[in-house]
C-alpha cells in the first residue's frame, strides 16, 4: 500500500466507525425534538420536520420524569460519596499501613472478584426486607458503598506515596488521622476523581438491582422508569427518545468533562489488573 493510500484507508475506516458509534446518539437527539408520530413516516426522517419541545413537556409534566431524574441523581451522588470515602480509606490502609491479616484479606478480596454480583442479589433482597430497606434510597445504594475494584485502584496509586514522607510526619508528631487527611488524601486527588467518575456512572447506569429493590414507582431511577415506559409506550418513539436523552445526556456530559480521569482509571485497572 502506498503511504498516501494508507492515510486514506486508515482515516476513512476510523471515520466510518466513529460515525456508526455516534449516529444512534445523534439520531436519538434529533427524534426527541420531532412532533409525535413523525418518526413513523417513510422515508424515516433524519432531522425533525418541525422542532418541538412537546415530548419533554409530556415527560416532565404527565410522566413525572423530574422525579426519576431526582432519584437517579440522589442515589448516584450518595453512592459515589460513600464509596469514594470507604475505598480511599481501605485502599490507603492496604497500601501503606501494616495490620494483622492484611495480605490474607487482600487475597480474599481479589478472589471475591470472580463471583458475579447477581449471586448475592436474591438473598440481599431477603436480608433488606426485615430491615425496612426495600423501596428506600438506602436499599439501592447498599451494595455500591464499597468495591474491590475501587480499593484495588486506590492501593495501586497509594503505593507510590514515599514512606519517608509519612515517617517524617510521624516523627513531627502528626496523628495517623491527620497524616491521612492532610498528606495522603491531597496526594490521591487524581485517583479520587477517577473513582468518583466510575462510581457515579456505574450507579447511574445500573439496572438490575434498582429494578429489584425499588418496586415503588415514585422511587424509580431513570433506567428503571424508562424500561417500564418503553414497555407501555411501544408506539410513542419520539417520547421514548426524549426519555433516552434525559437518561443518557447527564452521563455523556460528565464523561466528556472528565474523560482524562476516566481513561486513566480504565487503563490502570485494565492493564495492571
Amino acid at each position, binding site marked *: *500500500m502506498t503511504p498516501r493510500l*494508507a492515510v486514506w484507508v*486508515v*482515516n476513512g*475506516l*476510523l*471515520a466510518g*466507525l*466513529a460515525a*456508526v*458509534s455516534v449516529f*444512534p*446518539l445523534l*439520531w436519538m437527539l434529533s*427524534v426527541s425534538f420531532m412532533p409525535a408520530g413523525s*418518526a413513523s413516516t417513510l422515508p*424515516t426522517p433524519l432531522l425533525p420536520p418541525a422542532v418541538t419541545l412537546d415530548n419533554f413537556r409530556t415527560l416532565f409534566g404527565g410522566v413525572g420524569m423530574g422525579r426519576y431524574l431526582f432519584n437517579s441523581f440522589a442515589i448516584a451522588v450518595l453512592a459515589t460519596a460513600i464509596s469514594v470515602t*470507604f475505598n480511599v*480509606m*481501605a485502599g490507603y*490502609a492496604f497500601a501503606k*499501613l*501494616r*495490620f*494483622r491479616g492484611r495480605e490474607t484479606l487482600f487475597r480474599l478480596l481479589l478472589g*471475591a472478584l470472580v463471583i*458475579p*454480583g*447477581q*449471586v*448475592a442479589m*436474591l*438473598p440481599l*433482597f*431477603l*436480608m433488606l426486607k426485615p430491615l425496612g430497606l426495600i423501596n428506600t434510597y438506602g436499599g439501592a445504594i447498599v451494595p455500591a*458503598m*464499597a468495591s*474491590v475494584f475501587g480499593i484495588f485502584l486506590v492501593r495501586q496509586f497509594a503505593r507510590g506515596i514515599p514512606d519517608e514522607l509519612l515517617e517524617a510526619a510521624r516523627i513531627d508528631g502528626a496523628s495517623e*488521622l491527620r497524616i*491521612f487527611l492532610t498528606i495522603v488524601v491531597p496526594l490521591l486527588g487524581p485517583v479520587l476523581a477517577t473513582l468518583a467518575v466510575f462510581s457515579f*456512572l456505574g450507579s447511574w*447506569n445500573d*439496572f*438490575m438491582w434498582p429494578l429489584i429493590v425499588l418496586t415503588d414507582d415514585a422511587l424509580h431511577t431513570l*433506567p428503571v422508569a*424508562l*424500561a417500564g415506559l*418503553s414497555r407501555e409506550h411501544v408506539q410513542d418513539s419520539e417520547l*421514548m*427518545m426524549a*426519555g433516552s436523552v434525559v*437518561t443518557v445526556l447527564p452521563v*455523556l456530559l460528565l*464523561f466528556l468533562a472528565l474523560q482524562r480521569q476516566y*481513561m486513566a482509571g480504565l*487503563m490502570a485497572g*485494565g*492493564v495492571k*489488573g
Partner: protein
Amino acid sequence: MTRSGVVGWALAAPALAVILVFFAVPVVIGLALSLTDFDLYALADLSTLRFVGLDNYARLLHTPLFWQAFGNTLYFVAVGVPVSIGLSLGAALLLHARVAKWQALFRTALFAPVVTTVVAVAVIWRYLLHTRYGLINQALGTLGIDPVDWLGNPHWSMPAIILFAAWKNFGYNMVILLAALQAVPRELYESARVDGAGSLRQFSDLTFPMLTPTLAMVGIMTLAGYFQLFAEPYVMTQGGPLRSTVSVLYFMYEEGFRWWNLGYASAVAFVLFLVIFAVSAALWRFDRDPAAGR
C-alpha cells in the same frame, strides 16, 4: 498491636464491613437458600420453609426453558465475545496506526457508547431495528436487501442483540488494547523493518505475541460480563420471540421476582456462577500453557 496496625484496621473496616455484610454473607445465604424450597409462602411465613437438598438443581436440569436460556446465553457469549473483541482490536490497531489523524477525537467518539445507559440505548436500537421504520432496514434496502424482522423473528433476535452489544461495548476493550499497543517499544518495530518484515509479518510476529496477555485478560473479563446478559433482552425483546432471547439471568429474574421461587432462582444463580468460573478457569489455563489444551 502497633499504632499503625490499629489505624490500618480502622481505615479498612468500613469498606470490609460493607463487602462482608452486603456481599459475602448474601453469597453464603444464597448457597443455603438454593438448598431450600423458599417461595411465596415462605416469604409470608418462614415456618413453611423446607430443606430440599439438591432438588432445585435436579429440577433445573429437567426444565426445558432453563436449557433454552442456557443455550441462548451460550450463543450470545460464543458469538458476541469474538465479534466484540475483534471490533475492539481492529479499532485499536487503526487508532494506533502511524498515519491515523485526530486520534483523540476518534477515540472519544468510539468510546461514547460505553458510558451510555444500556436501557436508554436499547430503546434507541429497538427503533433502529424496526422492520418498517428502522434505519437499518432502510439502509439494507438501498443495497437491495429485503427488510428483516430483527426483533420479531426468532432467528434474527439474538444476532440483533449481539450487534447491539458489540456496538455498546467494543470501545471499552479498545482503550485497554490501545494502551497495550502503545506499551510495545517503537524500536522493536524499527528493527523488524530493518530485518525486512512487512506490515503483516510485523503484526503476526511482533504485535500479536506482545498483545496476547492483554487479549486473554480482556477475553476472560468480557466473557464473564456477557454471561450476565439481562437488560438488553429485558428492554428489546422481553425474552421473545418464542423465548429466543431468554438469558440465564432473565430466567433467574422471572423465577425469583415474578414468581417468587427464591430457592429455585438461587440455584440458577449458582449454576451461572459455576459455569462462568469453569469457562474462565479453562481459558486461563489455556492461556498460561497452550499445550494443556491440545
